[in-house]
């Protein structure tokens, strides 16, 4: 089953239900996708720092929530930007939020490290688009 690279997706979101649905949806799209969940930015950052040199353990895609306790999405982005010098792997970051506020979308898309902004609810189509191109 190692005919192609197994895509690795990391979700940074404190919402357990959202974590559950995203994982199930990804499995339905492609059950080879590896999935990792962090409940806040700091947890994720810790992991990324520890695995900065090991490309195969780093995610290809990060789905990042804005509103989280402890370290929110914006704070994570700031810290992640500092890590760019040690992480070689090109990681695509998608910001996802339940906010229907245009300002959040604008701000997210203006971040250099952010590939795109997706508004919740997440759907199979949206997820497929996020991992599309790399999944098959």
């Amino acid at each position, binding site marked *: 089953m190692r005919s192609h690279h197994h895509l690795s997706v990391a979700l940074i979101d404190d*919402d*357990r*239900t*959202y974590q*559950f*649905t995203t994982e*199930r*949806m990804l499995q*339905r799209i492609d059950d080879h996708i590896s999935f990792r969940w962090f409940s*806040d930015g700091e947890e994720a950052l810790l992991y990324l720092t520890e695995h900065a040199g090991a490309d195969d353990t780093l995610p290809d895609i990060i789905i990042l929530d804005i*509103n989280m*306790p*402890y370290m929110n999405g914006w704070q994570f982005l700031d810290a992640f930007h500092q890590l760019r010098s040690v992480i070689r792997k090109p990681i695509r970051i998608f910001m996802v*939020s*339940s*906010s*229907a*506020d245009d300002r959040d979308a604008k701000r997210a898309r203006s971040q250099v490290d952010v590939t795109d902004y997706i508004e*919740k*609810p*997440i*759907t*199979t189509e949206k997820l497929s688009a996020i991992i599309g191109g790399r999944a098959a």
Partner: protein
Amino acid sequence: MTEAIVLHGPNGVIRYAAPGCERLLEMPSDEIQGSNLLDRLDESERKRVKQAFVRCALRGQAYGPTLVRAAAPVVRWFEVRTQPVRDRAGHTLELHTVIRDLTARIRFHEDLSMREALEREANELAAVGGWMLDLRAGSLYWSPEVRRIHEVGEDFVPTLQSAVDFYAPEARPVITQAVEETIATGQPRTVELPLVTARGRKIWVRALLRSHMEGGRAVRLYGALQDVTERKAYEEKMSQLVDELTWQRDRLAEFGHIVTHHLRGPVCNLVTLSDMMKEGRDESAPREDEELVDHVADAAKQLLATFDDVTTAVTSVDTDHLPNDTIDVQDMLLKIVTGLSADIQRSSARISWDITHCPKISYPTVYFETIVRNLIENALTYTVSGRRPVIHIRTWMDGTSPCLSVADNGSGIDLGRYGDAVFRLRTTFHRGRSGRGTGLFTIRHLIESLDGDITVDSTPDVGSTFIVNFFKYRPEQGT
């Protein structure tokens, strides 16, 4: 000034007129002789003047000077002065009358007093008065309006010292400095300061100071003084209104945040879950279906909890009318602690209080209980494992506003990081704790709706102190 000198009989018929009478009498010079002087006077005056002429002729007495109204249509005033002209035997031959037109002078005085009256009224209306300080003589003059502003009578003799003493104690150094600077630099100054009138009324005045220089030195200080109490009160009201609007706007922004993050989030989850249930029914295991249902229930519960919190916050905003109760703090603390006894025993927490400086607080009982219970519950929740929780409650007065603090030795909050988020809905500061973050949000709304304030002082791993100032923003708190 125009003048006419005429000789005439007691009946007023002119026998001779000196040159230059035409203007005053408003007649061609050749018509004057033979005409009647009385005709040049207003009808209403003729009888009186004629009688005077007759008396003058018969008794040989002088008449006038007297003010007489000239003939219509234009209003003019003559000053009339009549002397009898007698022969050697002492018989009156004719009357010698000098007429002066005083209209211009009377108008001038009328205008002047009218202008003065107008100025007085305008000053009174604007509550502006004038003053002057003669630096050489050391005397101070106050206009009637300045006296009225100070509520002193006409007999009050102001001095520089007594004028300064009318200002509120905190304003005296300011006005003194303004006087000194105006004398020293010659530059005009304007100050707005509180003043206490002779009747003890506290008002606000705007004082304008100017100096009159002679030979490079100020010899006189003068200026205006205006009562601006009303405007000040208005400004105060405006600023309160702005504060209130800003507060409301912030609440609205916060409500927007709650709606997008705390209400929309669970709803999005419900949408996704129901989609998955529809899509996945045939191929997924029954086990997964069960998990989906559990998540649906979780999302619904979360939604309900948020709704409840928001409802409490929103309804608490409109509670100005809620009556205050006199709360016995000791009784209330005992009641709360009894209610929490299970938690207290489990954590073997030590709770103490010092309420001697404010044993009774006037506040709606239900709110007070909610606020204090929440703060104690928080202190019991965010503890450091292996450390016995120590909670101390204190009450005191800040001016007329009662205050209460709850201090703990718990895990504390990194205020550098969360400072502004402490009192927001569902903010969790403690990893691995299910802290709802709801309590602080709700009680902040309760406190603010009654013009109070809640603040926190905290050091991570050392503890937190929450301070409630119940009526911090209430301008006049009873007596």
